[in-house]
């Protein structure tokens, strides 16, 4: 690799942040906004370029960069992407850019706001690019700090409580993860912090007890981030109090770090423990799905409703991951390998689609909150007449979220269910209840806000302005595009997921070829 393109993408936002730090916070507000917008826009362009350079047919890590960093400890600066990280990188750069565009309306402490957002972008991109545990951990934590400030400074009335709760919860998880990383390091031979090498070594294959401890250490780190029931309680607080763009990044990107961790770290490095405890993962995923949906249905606050719907939707991701590493016994169907790949494909796609759908939904909640200064679902009515554009976009996003065929959410959830059924038929069947409840509360919400007689109190609300439409339009376009023709993005993901399932012994049987799998999926949509 001649140009270190991943590094350029990764540190461009940091450069932007440093530039902003040198600007005057009162005189240069316009310049600060432009710097942030241009930097994040360039980062988005570079990430698209990264996808263009990425060869989706080739398994393994691409665009690799590896130089020694802390030589004494064997820590390398090791970056690389595969089909798992590519969609999440695009998600991060896209949502960050749109968040910054949307945040032009922020008037208070613009300099710090933009600086923190750019730092956040470097942190989250770093998590998805890093292939060395120490580097991974550093970026993991670096993404934590700016979000703490974003919630704490620009958040709602209970922002201080929400900010520290978010920070403490995630720090508990990440420190547990740190211990697991150290345990892995001291048991690897030769000692390494490299995630890829560690996956090849499978250092704890002969030490099931330690492997179990490491699995649960990693689990705590990732599950809190996802968040999986019962570690989800920070999420409603953080989401409700965070400013709009903060919620977008939190739901759209930060939650994905948890599920990404499961697929990138837990599955390949402690595969046996994953198989052993897959039932637990599936069970917790099921509880998250049902419980999250039920909680969402009970919320009068629109933002909280979407926050709980995230618990529900991330449950599907976890169900797909659990299904992929489940123990299926020697008598499983011959296609179980395909099912597992399908489940993982669905899980990764769901990470992406949930990011764009929920990102859009949080922007849209911000739109109505900026105008009405309340978010109570019951306080509106007939808004479809007052704000037709807003109503159209919002209804589309809700439909995408509840899994209407033709929109992105359906494809991902369908793949998860399709794949998970092979491993966990009963749990998967029960999880479908979650879909029904989700449909229920979203339809109900649409009805309460947009239909019925116009609430006269809101009859003068202006419709969405250009900036707001600009922030949401690309997300809506993606929802539709993936919903109608998901093959390009599934093609990106599929090779890496197949590789994972085959290499780490989650199936005994041979897998069908890629092309037959693609045909299999295409036939389903035909």
């Amino acid at each position, binding site marked *: 690799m001649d140009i270190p393109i991943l590094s350029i993408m990764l540190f461009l936002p940091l450069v932007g942040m440093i530039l902003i730090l040198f600007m005057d*916070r009162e005189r240069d507000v316009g310049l600060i906004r432009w710097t942030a917008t241009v930097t994040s826009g360039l980062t988005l362009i570079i990430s698209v370029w990264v996808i263009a350079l990425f060869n989706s047919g080739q398994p393994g890590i691409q665009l690799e960069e590896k130089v020694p960093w*802390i*030589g*004494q*400890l064997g820590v390398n600066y090791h970056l690389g992407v595969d089909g798992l990280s590519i969609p999440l990188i695009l998600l991060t750069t896209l949502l960050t850019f749109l968040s910054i565009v949307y945040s032009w309306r922020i008037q208070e402490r613009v300099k*710090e706001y933009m600086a923190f957002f750019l730092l956040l972008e470097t942190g989250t991109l770093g998590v998805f690019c890093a292939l060395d545990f*120490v580097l991974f*951990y*550093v970026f*993991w*934590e*670096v993404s*934590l*700090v700016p979000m*703490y*400030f974003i919630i*704490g*400074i620009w958040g709602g009335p209970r*922002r*201080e409580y929400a*900010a*520290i709760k978010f*920070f*403490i919860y995630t*720090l*508990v998880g990440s*420190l*547990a993860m*740190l*211990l697991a990383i*150290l*345990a892995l*390091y*001291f048991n690897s031979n030769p000692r390494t912090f490299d995630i890829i090498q560690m996956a090849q070594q499978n250092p704890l294959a002969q030490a099931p007890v330690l492997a179990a401890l490491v699995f649960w250490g990693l689990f705590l780190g990732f599950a809190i981030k996802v968040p999986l029931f019962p570690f989800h309680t920070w999420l409603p607080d953080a989401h409700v109090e965070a400013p709009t763009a903060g919620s977008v990044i939190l739901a759209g990107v930060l939650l994905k770090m948890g599920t990404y961790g499961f697929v990138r770290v837990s599955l390949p490095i402690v595969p046996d423990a994953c198989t052993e405890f897959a039932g637990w993962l599936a069970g917790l995923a099921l509880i998250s799905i049902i419980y999250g949906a039920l909680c969402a249905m009970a919320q009068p606050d629109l933002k909280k409703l979407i926050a709980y719907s995230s618990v529900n939707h991330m449950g599907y991701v976890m169900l797909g991951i659990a299904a992929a590493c489940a123990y299926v016994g020697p008598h499983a169907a011959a296609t179980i390998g395909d099912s597992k790949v399908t489940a993982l494909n669905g899980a990764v796609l769901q990470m992406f689609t949930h990011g764009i759908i929920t990102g859009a939904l949080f922007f849209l909640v911000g739109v109505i909150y900026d105008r009405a200064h309340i978010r109570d679902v019951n306080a509106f009515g007939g808004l479809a007449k007052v704000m037709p554009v807003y109503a159209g976009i919002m209804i589309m996003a809700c439909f995408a979220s509840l899994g209407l065929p033709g929109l992105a959410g359906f494809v991902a959830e369908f793949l998860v269910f399709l794949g998970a059924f092979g491993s966990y038929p009963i749990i998967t069947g029960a999880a479908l209840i979650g879909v029904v409840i989700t449909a229920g509360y979203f339809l109900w919400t649409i009805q309460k806000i947009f239909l019925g007689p116009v609430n006269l109190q809101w009859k003068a609300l202006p419709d969405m302005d250009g900036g707001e439409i600009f922030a949401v339009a690309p997300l809506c376009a993606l929802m539709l595009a993936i919903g109608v023709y998901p093959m390009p993005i599934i093609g990106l993901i599929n090779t890496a997921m197949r590789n994972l399932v085959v290499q780490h012994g989650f199936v005994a049987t041979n897998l069908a070829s890629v092309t037959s799998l693609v045909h299999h999926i295409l036939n389903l949509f035909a």
Partner: protein
Amino acid sequence: MPIDDLTQVSVQLHLTVLAILVLALDLVIPRRGTWGLLWNKLPAGVATAGLLLGLYPVALLWGIGPRTEFSGCLAINNFVLFFQGIFLVVGALVILLSIDFFRNLRQGYNEYFSLIVFLVLGMTVLAAANDLVVLVVAFELVSIPSYVLAAYLRRDPKSNEAGLKYFLYGAAASAMMLYGLTIVYGLGGTTNLLALGEKLEAHVIAGGGLLAPLALVLMGVGLGYKIAMAPFHAWAPDVYEGAPTPVTTLLSVGPKAAGFAIVARVLWQLGQPLLGGWPMLVAILATLTMFTGNLLALRQTNMKRMLAYSSIAHAGYMLIAVVVGPNTEWAAQSLVFYIGAYVLMNVGAFAVAILVERNAGNALIASYDGLARSAPLAAAAMGIFLLSLTGIPGTVGFVGKFLLFGAAINSQTWWWLALVGIINSVISLYYYMNVVRVMYFSKARHLERIRWSAGVAAVICVTLAGTLALGIAPMPLLSITAHASYLAAYF
């Protein structure tokens, strides 16, 4: 005595001459006339430059190999030299913090700097002590200037209280330690630490008795007091709060680091023969120290008290490395590295505290209200120091904790100390971030603007640069600490 030996104590000789020179300068500098004010700064300047110059002899002695000099009274090895270097830097930083702080002092302005140099001298001897008698003398040479310095603001009742409390606690602790050392001497028949190891071994083989464990416990009281280990930590919050803040800075890093140097060397050498189960005892005390410091820090409203409890907690973290012992990879290095990291971040945090205290007139955390608006640079620096104390990556504090917990995991036996450590890190996050909350999240502002002083600004710059640079690229400090801990024997 061959003259050659003197080069081996060139650090101590240098400091002795420097201390006397600073004291003498005060007598001869003119105080009146146009240049009077400038002349008055001369002793402080000479002391700072002299302390930093002391790094040169340290560097000369570095890497020659472990040895003892002066009939085995002093140990000279990289481990000891690393600590001596730390003390010199700490002394220089504290003087820079003090120049403006004591500006209005009516008398004794320049004696103050001489006392700091004497204290640094005491610490360099204490870290190197290889003989019980030298250990006692060095212990007192550290303690006595500390008592005086803690009470340096004579008109401030709190400062007087601090000095007196420190003295009374210190006297009792010294007496206990001395008693313990007497027993050790009685058992071993020699005052040389190196020889004692073997002699005590023979005593244990011969049947031993309760005297040996008793001696260890009594020594532990004295040394535990110095590093503020629970349950001998009670003096710290009152003394830290009452003492002039630059002195608090010094006490929180200097004698603590010196204490750790000698605690590690004594326990690693004499622990086994005196009490076979010492690691478990110290592990329990480390746990107690971490929880005591962190839990009591949660409710503090005074910055100095909060940092006092935090420094107790950090002593607990460092004790993990002492427990794990020098035979486990990473352990000795993590102790040395953590000391270096702790000096950077803690002195930095105190430097900002001094800045705010000088402007607000008190050390209450409430005075930090809205600091991010009135002094964005100071607030950002404080935020980074606090994140480093918590152990967030990107700062040197993370690398320190990474090594410490890694050592504990690597030892296998003591993995649970790493668990205790992370639980405590989470607790500490709450009170460190409470300060960040006050600085950043508040809409009000307590101070309109901040008046900086050159010395404080310099210290903040140096420590901030160190905290961040060594957090991102810890390689230089790792190399040095690897050399400082790469020794079969610490004597």
